[in-house]
C-alpha cells in the first residue's frame, strides 16, 4: 500500500476514534494544555504590555521581547524543566507560557501605544484622568492588536504543545513521538495531519473571535472617529 | 517644440481625461496648463514623457513621434519636477542630482562639476551636497528637485505644481528665482498648476482646461485677461480680472500727465490757479532740477503767499516706468491726492498717473 493509502486507513480506523488513546481524547488534552498556557500567559502578559504602553516606560524591553522570546528553544525548556521537576504538566506549561508571553506583551504595548496622539489629547483635554483614558480610550482602540497578539500566541502554543508528548504527556503529539519511535509511518503522518488541521482550525476560529470581540465601529479606518465619538459621549 | 495632434486619453473606467487636444508648445517658452481638478492638465503633461500613454492621437517632440521612442530613452531627455519632489531618500543631494548623468553614462569628473554648477544655479550652498534629503527644508528640497531635473541640460522640462508644497512666501521666492533662471536657459517648459495667479505670473502662454479635458483657450496672459473666450474662462480668471490685468501692464505703457507742477519759489496764488485749471486742490512741488519734493494744498499755498511756505507733504509711494499699473493703483489709493506720481532715477519727476488713464488702458 502506498503511504497515502496507509495514512487514510489509519485515520479512518474507528479504533483511533475511541478510548483513552483515541484522537478525541488526545485532541482535548492538546487543547487543554494550550488553553491553560495561553490563559496564564495572557494573565501575566496583558497587564505588563498595557502598563508599558500606557506609561511608556520600558518600551525598549517590550519591543524587543518578542525577538528575545523567539530565540528560546521550547524543546530545550521542556526537557530542562522536566529533568529538574520530573514528570507532569509543569515542564510543558513553563515552556508554553514562556513562548506565549512575548507576542502578547509586544502587541499589547504597540496597541496601547499606537493610539493616535490626537485622540489621547482629545480625551485628556476633555478632562479624562489617566485611568479613564486607559479604559475608555486606549484599551478599546488597542483591542484589535491585543487580539492579534493573543491569536499569534495561541496558535504558536497549539503548535508547540505537540512537543508535550516528548516528556510523556498526552496531546496529539503522542502520535508523532510514538510513531517516530515505532517507525510507524502511517501513525506519524496521520498525527502530523491532525496536528496541522488543529492548528489551522485554531487560527480560523480565533480569527472569527477577533472580529466579534473588536468593538463596534472599530474597523481599521473608523477606529479614531469611533473612539472620539465615545470620548465625547463619556465626557 | 511639442505638438499634440488630436490627442485623447480615456481611462479604463470610461472617464475621458483629455478630449481631442490640439496644442503646440513653442520652443523656449514657458507654457502653463491650468484648470480645476479633473480637467486633464496633469494627464496631458504626463503624456509628454509617456508616463501615461495616449489613447489616440499623436504627440511630437521636435518633429519626432514619441510613441516610436523607447520610454526610458525619452525620459532621460526630459526634465521632470513634481510637487512632492520624490528625491531618493537613500542618496545624498549630490547623488540625487547625479542620477540622470549616471544613467546616460557621463564620467565622474564631468558629473561632479555639473553638480557643483547646478547647486549654484538653484541657489543652494555647496555643503548640502553631502546631506540627505530628510535633512533639508521643503524649499531646499524643491530646489534640489529642479537641479536634478536640469542635470543633463534637457531641452524640455515638465513641471507639475512644483511649488505647491511650500508656504506662500517661499513659493513666491521660488517662482521669482525660477523665472530668472528661465531667462538664462530658455528651455521649453510645460508647467501645470491649479492657481490662476501662478499661471499668469509664470506663463508666456496659458492653456486653460475645463473638466473633462477640454481646452478652452490658449493665449498669452494679457490676451487671456483682456479677451476671455468663454464664460468658463472668465469665471476661472476670477472677478478681479481687471486687477490681474493691471499687474501685467507696466506704467510706461501709459502716458503720464504733467499735472499742476510748481516750485517752492513760485507764487502761491499762481499755484492755486494752476490747480484749479487742472481740476485738483493740490499741486506737485519740484525743485530747480525737476526733483520731486512732494505735494501741497493749493489753498494753503495761496494763503501763505509762497508755495514753499506751505507744508510740503511727501508722496508715500512712487512708481517707476517698469512698475506695474497695479502698483500705480495701489499708490493712488494710498495718497490723499488720489493720483500716483511717476519718477525716474530715484526722484526725477516724470508725471502723474490717474485712475482715468488706468481705466482707459484696460477697457
Amino acid at each position: 500500500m502506498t503511504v497515502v493509502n496507509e495514512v487514510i486507513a489509519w485515520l479512518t480506523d474507528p479504533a483511533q476514534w475511541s478510548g483513552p488513546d483515541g484522537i478525541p481524547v488526545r485532541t482535548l488534552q492538546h487543547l487543554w494544555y494550550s488553553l491553560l498556557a495561553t490563559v496564564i500567559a495572557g494573565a501575566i502578559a496583558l497587564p505588563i504590555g498595557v502598563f508599558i504602553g500606557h506609561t511608556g516606560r520600558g518600551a525598549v524591553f517590550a519591543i524587543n521581547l518578542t525577538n528575545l522570546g523567539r530565540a528560546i528553544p521550547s524543546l530545550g525548556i521542556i526537557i530542562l524543566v522536566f529533568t529538574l521537576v520530573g514528570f507532569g504538566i509543569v515542564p510543558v506549561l513553563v515552556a508554553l507560557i514562556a513562548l506565549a508571553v512575548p507576542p502578547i506583551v509586544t502587541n499589547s504595548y504597540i496597541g496601547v501605544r499606537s493610539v493616535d496622539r490626537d485622540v489621547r489629547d482629545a480625551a485628556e483635554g476633555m478632562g479624562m484622568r489617566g485611568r479613564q483614558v486607559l479604559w475608555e480610550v486606549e484599551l478599546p482602540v488597542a483591542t484589535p492588536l491585543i487580539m492579534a497578539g493573543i491569536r499569534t500566541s495561541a496558535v504558536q502554543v497549539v503548535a508547540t504543545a505537540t512537543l508535550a508528548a516528548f516528556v510523556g504527556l498526552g496531546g496529539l503529539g503522542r502520535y508523532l513521538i510514538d510513531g517516530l519511535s515505532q517507525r510507524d509511518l502511517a501513525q506519524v503522518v496521520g498525527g502530523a495531519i491532525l496536528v496541522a488541521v488543529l492548528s489551522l482550525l485554531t487560527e480560523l476560529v480565533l480569527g472569527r473571535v477577533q472580529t466579534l470581540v473588536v468593538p463596534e465601529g472599530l474597523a481599521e479606518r473608523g477606529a479614531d472617529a469611533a473612539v472620539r465619538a465615545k470620548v465625547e459621549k463619556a465626557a | 517644440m511639442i505638438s499634440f495632434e488630436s490627442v485623447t486619453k480615456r481611462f479604463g473606467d470610461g472617464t475621458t481625461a483629455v478630449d481631442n487636444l490640439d496644442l503646440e508648445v513653442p520652443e523656449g517658452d514657458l507654457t502653463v496648463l491650468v484648470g480645476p481638478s479633473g480637467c486633464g492638465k496633469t494627464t496631458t503633461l504626463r503624456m509628454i514623457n509617456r508616463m501615461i500613454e495616449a489613447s489616440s492621437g499623436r504627440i511630437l517632440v521636435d518633429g519626432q513621434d514619441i510613441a516610436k521612442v523607447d520610454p526610458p530613452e525619452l525620459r532621460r531627455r526630459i526634465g521632470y519636477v513634481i510637487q512632492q519632489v520624490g528625491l531618493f531618500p537613500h542618496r545624498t543631494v549630490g547623488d540625487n542630482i547625479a542620477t540622470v548623468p549616471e544613467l546616460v553614462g557621463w564620467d565622474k569628473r564631468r558629473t561632479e562639476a555639473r553638480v557643483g554648477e547646478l547647486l549654484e544655479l538653484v541657489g543652494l550652498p555647496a555643503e548640502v551636497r553631502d546631506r540627505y534629503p530628510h535633512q533639508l527644508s521643503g524649499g531646499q528640497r524643491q530646489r534640489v528637485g529642479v537641479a536634478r531635473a536640469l542635470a543633463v541640460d534637457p531641452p524640455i522640462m515638465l513641471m507639475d505644481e512644483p511649488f505647491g508644497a511650500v508656504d506662500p512666501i517661499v513659493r513666491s521666492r521660488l517662482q521669482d528665482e525660477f523665472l530668472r533662471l528661465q531667462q538664462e536657459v530658455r528651455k521649453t517648459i510645460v508647467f501645470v498648476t491649479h492657481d490662476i495667479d501662478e499661471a499668469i505670473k509664470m506663463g508666456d502662454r496659458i492653456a486653460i482646461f475645463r473638466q473633462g479635458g477640454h481646452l478652452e483657450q490658449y493665449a498669452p496672459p494679457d490676451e487671456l485677461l483682456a479677451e476671455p473666450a468663454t464664460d468658463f474662462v472668465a469665471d476661472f480668471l476670477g472677478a478681479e480680472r481687471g486687477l490681474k490685468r493691471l499687474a501685467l501692464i507696466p506704467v510706461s505703457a501709459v502716458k503720464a500727465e504733467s499735472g499742476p507742477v510748481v516750485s517752492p519759489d513760485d507764487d502761491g496764488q499762481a499755484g492755486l490757479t494752476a490747480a484749479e485749471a487742472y481740476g485738483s486742490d493740490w499741486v506737485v512741488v519740484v525743485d530747480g532740477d525737476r526733483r520731486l519734493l512732494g505735494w501741497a494744498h493749493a489753498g494753503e499755498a495761496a494763503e501763505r503767499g509762497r508755495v514753499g511756505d506751505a507744508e510740503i507733504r511727501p508722496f508715500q509711494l512712487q512708481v517707476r516706468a517698469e512698475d506695474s499699473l497695479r502698483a500705480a493703483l495701489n499708490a493712488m489709493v494710498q495718497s490723499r491726492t488720489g493720483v500716483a506720481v511717476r519718477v525716474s532715477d530715484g526722484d526725477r519727476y516724470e508725471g502723474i498717473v490717474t485712475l482715468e488713464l488706468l481705466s482707459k488702458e484696460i477697457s
Partner: protein
Amino acid sequence: MTDAPAPVLAAELIRWSWVGDHLDDIRGYLFQHVQLTVLAVLFGLLLAFPLALVAVRWPRTYSPVLGFTGVLFTIPSLALFILLIPFTGLSVRTSLIGLTIYTLLILVRNIVEGLRGVDPDVREAAQAMGYTPARQLLQVELPLALPVIMAGIRIATVTTIGLVTVTALIGQGGLGRLFIDGFTLNFTTPIVVGIVLSALLAFAADLALVGLQRQLTPWARSRGS
C-alpha cells in the same frame, strides 16, 4: 516513560567538567546548527525574491500567495518535517527543506511589504527620470525596501535557530542534540548548555544582522531612529 527522578538541585545545573569533556561534540553540534541555519536562510532568500517580485508585479497573486504561506506557517514545525519524510526520507535534506519553507514564508511577506512601502513619489520620479524597470528595482526600490527586508531576515534567522533544535527529533538537531542527550542521561548540563548556546547564537546573529543593516543603509544613520 521513566518514573519521576529525584529533583535535581539548581546548584548542579551545570557540571563544568562535563562541558570540558565534551567540547568537541558541542563544537560539532554548534557547527551543524549554524550550517543548517545559514543554508536555510540563504535558500529561503533565493526562493523568496522571485516569488516576491511576482507578487509585487501582479498584485492579484499576492493574496493567494499570502494565504497559502500563512497556512503552511501555522503547521507545527515537527509536523511539517514529518510530512516531508515520505518524500525526502529521514535525512538532512528533510530538515533543510522544512527549515527553508519556514524562512521562505517570512521572507516573501517582508520583501513584498518592503517593496510596496517604497514612497510612490520616489518611484514616479525614478521612472520619469528614465530608469528602466530592472535598474529601478535594483538601484532605487530594493535599497529603500532594505530595512523591512532586513527585519524579515532577522526574524527568519532567529526563528530558524529555534526550529533547528526541533529537528533533533528527526535525527539532526544541531544544538538540539544536547537536549536529547540530557534527556536520555537525565542530566541538566547538556540541556542548559544547549539552551544557552542557541540563545546566544540567536542574539549574535541578530546583532550581526543589525550591524549589516546599518552598513547597508547609511542614509538612515543620520536620522537617528
